[in-house]
């Protein structure tokens, strides 16, 4: 659904590239996470793939449309949610959606249904200028769904939102994923990526360092240890044991059989830890 080949982009139109030699594919129905710290080149890539930035070098196509000169019809088939909310503040939430839906040449979703989906139906007829940051963000988010896009670009969809609203947004993304939509998720939030994405790509300094599924990355880079806490002589003891070494596996078995276990969990690496391991950089 998205094919990128040897993509380069320079804002200064010289050899200082914001993204360089970027190649990847996103399959139909896949949720692809594009992960990296601020300034890594995530938004530049998304800008090129949504036609907001012109193609300079390389090849890219989205939903079968060549991004060298994307036709406007392409926007009937894609949706773009921005990191910063961008709504007409003098218009009500419903007017914002009603206006935007009339710009499309394909069947669109009902404005009120979308507002209900995002929990904004009770303020449908209030001006967006009176909304909180979270409400504006949700309005921007549902507006990007209005044409029921085949390819959905989401830029930091949960950043700055309280956990309840973030969870609501994640549920909507999961539902769309189940419906078979292709989703390109740009974020620096590894927990969101871990939860939602089929595959993730790590980008840093404009270079794509690695692409794989979160599970494979954890298997490859995670430490295969178990933390176990158990009772011994009126006190709590803690041990970290390898699940690979024979000696540690016997010890773990012994503890389970003879002691009162209080806590036990695998020391699974987080995507953030893997990112740091792979790129040598944090996500801030």
């Amino acid at each position, binding site marked *: 659904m998205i094919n990128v080949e040897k993509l380069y982009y320079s804002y200064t139109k010289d050899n200082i590239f914001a993204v360089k030699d970027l190649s990847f594919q996103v399959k139909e129905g896949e949720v692809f996470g594009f992960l990296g710290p601020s300034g890594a080149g995530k938004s530049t890539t998304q800008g090129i793939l*949504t*036609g*907001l930035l*012109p193609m300079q070098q390389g090849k890219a196509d989205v939903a079968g449309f060549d991004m060298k000169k994307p036709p*406007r*019809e392409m*926007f*009937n088939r*894609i949706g*773009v949610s*921005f990191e*910063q909310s*961008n*709504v*007409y*503040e*003098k*218009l009500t939430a419903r*007017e914002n959606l009603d*206006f*935007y839906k*009339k*710009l*499309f*040449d394909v069947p669109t979703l009902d404005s009120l249904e979308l507002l209900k989906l995002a929990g904004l139906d009770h303020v449908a007829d209030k001006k967006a200028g009176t909304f909180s940051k979270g409400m504006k963000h949700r309005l*921007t988010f549902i*507006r990007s769904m209005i044409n029921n896009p085949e390819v959905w670009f989401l830029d930091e969809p949960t950043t700055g939102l309280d956990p309840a609203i973030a969870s609501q947004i994640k549920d909507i993304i999961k539902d769309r994923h189940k419906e078979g939509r292709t989703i390109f998720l740009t974020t620096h939030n590894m927990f969101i990526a871990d939860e939602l994405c089929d595959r993730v790509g790590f980008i840093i300094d404009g270079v794509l360092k690695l692409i794989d599924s979160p599970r494979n990355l954890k298997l490859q880079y995670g430490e295969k240890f178990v933390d176990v806490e158990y009772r011994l002589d009126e006190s709590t003891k803690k041990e970290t044991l390898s699940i690979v070494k024979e000696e540690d596996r016997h010890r773990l078995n012994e503890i389970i059989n003879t002691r009162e276990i209080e806590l036990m969990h695998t020391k699974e690496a987080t995507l953030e830890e893997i990112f740091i391991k792979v790129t040598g950089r944090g996500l801030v």
Partner: protein
Amino acid sequence: MFSKIMRVAGIDIKIGFRETTILYILIFPLILAFILKALTASNDIISLNAVIDPSVPSQMEEYLEQYGKVERVDSREDMDERVTKTDDYLGVFWNGESYTIVQQGNEEDLGEVLEFVINSMETRNLDIPAEVRISDVGWTLSPMKQYGGSLLVIFMSVMGGMVIVLNLIEEKTSNTLAAMNVSPVTRKEYVMGKSFIGFVVPIFHVIATLLILDYGDIDILKVIVVTLSIAVISVLIGFLIGVTNDDMMGGIASMKAVFMPVLASVFGAIFLSAKWQFLLYWSPFYWAFKSMDAIILKQATWGGIIVNTGIILGLTGIVFLLLNKRIREGLN
């Protein structure tokens, strides 16, 4: 295509009515027109208007009509009532031996002029008749009404560009421009939709102003052609300022700077002698002012209007070629 253009235009109109700055821009020129109207109201006294009762013979009525409007009423009471109204009408009645002139008292020298006119009629058969002539110095309108109206029309043509500036800056600061850029609306549709208000507002302002100032039966079609031609460059300037400014105050300040060539062109056209007028040929506002002045004086011909409009559009074309790239970049 047309429906999308109208949707983009429609959203600007809707937001415009909810935005106090834009409402102010829409109303302010009309207030100026009313102020100009108040300042030029006394121009009506240049004609010698009379109200007569049944005692005045029709011969005298026809004679007086050469000098101004004449109203015939049914009685002396009606005549007195008409004279007391706010405009300057003098009453005339015949008592069988002589004419009497009735006036409010604040008409200054009009009574004496009317007396001369009546006497000239009454003495026309004498060997040496008294002859009254009224001549003028070529002013059919007061300078304030003539030039003020034209200046106001040119000024209002720029107002449409100002509304575009505010709408574009709002789109940029709220980042709704980016949302528009990922919709199926083409750049051409967007620009045409945004420009719509830049043509509608001046047409509304100009027609309303001409009605307020009451220039009589001037050719509205010619006025619309001139207004639209000057609105093109205002829209172009509006887009340039809109895309190059990121805040309202900066945009308004830049737009105010545009008023400088407008005022310079108009005042130059009024005060510069004919041999120096060529210094203003570069300005589309100069040509628009010349056209409007001729229209208001009812001296404009379609040939002249077409030539001036062609010059305005030619100059606008040059400006467009210079600014096109910058505007396109700014809309990305």
